[in-house]
């Protein structure tokens, strides 16, 4: 029952934030909507026993990534109004067709019973329990789903992707810095050409 209430409240926050991203004319409001969505998803991660991922979501996504977004919005200018008229003539109808197609496909998947692989053949979830039980598990030290398991998996089974991730982050940050420092030298090239 408690999970139902949390699902309804946080699910509406998720959808409202997402609609705010798509609808907002001001990019700052769009960023605020995205931040609300990310926080509500972190709540979902907590009730799914994914505490580590929830913490990373709040710190990295809602903290660092959104700060980066807001920084770039301020750099580009917040008072710049975006024209919503479309130059490609067929983009709006094609978008409508894509949306209707995805809705119909999802409806077929749900109604046709193809959803059973997700919840198991007998309809039972593997990790049962109410939010209260999960809260008690949070406190216990030997909880198998606690932070220690994720940490252990990172440095044992997923060690190679983890190290590749560090290389990716280095390459990405160096690339971002070099892109920021890059200036096209048109004038000097023109002088050489003359």
């Amino acid at each position, binding site marked *: *029952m408690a999970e*139902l209430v949390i*699902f309804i409240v946080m*699910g509406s926050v*998720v*959808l409202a934030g*997402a609609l705010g*991203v*798509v609808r907002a004319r001001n*990019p700052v409001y*769009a*960023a605020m909507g995205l931040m609300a*969505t*990310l926080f509500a*998803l972190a709540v*979902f*991660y907590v009730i*799914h*026993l*994914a505490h*580590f*991922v929830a913490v*990373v979501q709040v710190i*990295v*996504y809602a903290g660092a*990534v959104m700060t*980066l*977004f807001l920084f*770039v*919005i301020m750099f*580009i200018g917040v008072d710049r109004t*975006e*024209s*919503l008229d479309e*130059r490609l003539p067929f*983009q*709006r109808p094609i*978008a409508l067709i*894509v*949306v209707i197609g*995805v809705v119909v496909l999802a409806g077929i998947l749900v109604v046709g019973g193809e*959803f059973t692989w*997700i*919840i*198991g053949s007998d309809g039972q979830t*593997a*990790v049962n329990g109410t939010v209260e039980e999960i809260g008690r598990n949070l406190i216990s030290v030997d909880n198998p789903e606690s932070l220690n398991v*994720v940490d252990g*998996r990172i440095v044992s089974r*997923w060690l190679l992707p983890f190290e590749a*991730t560090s290389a990716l*982050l280095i*390459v*990405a*940050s160096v*690339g*971002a810095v070099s*892109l*920021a420092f*890059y200036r096209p030298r048109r004038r000097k090239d023109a002088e050489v050409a003359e």
Partner: protein
Amino acid sequence: MTVTPGWYMTLAAVLFLIGTVGLLLRNNALIMFMSVELMLNAVNLTFIAAGRAHGDINGQMAVFFVLVVAAAEVAVGLAIIVSIYRSRQTASVDDLAEMSG
């Protein structure tokens, strides 16, 4: 009334759809970027829900790596947007159509 993982899957599908609509309809490159983030987060929610349903922690590991790659992608993508803005004074993707045939 219990909340099954299917509910979370449905919520994630709706979230993914909203992200798709934003990516298709908006012109501002920043908003399109945020829509891509919405789609990534929808997939993350399905990973977490399926991982809980199967009692498998590898779903959370997948979400962890998606988070890291998304952070790197945002850093590089925003740097590209900033450098485009410095040379063109615009962030609208419709103004960057020189290569259209």
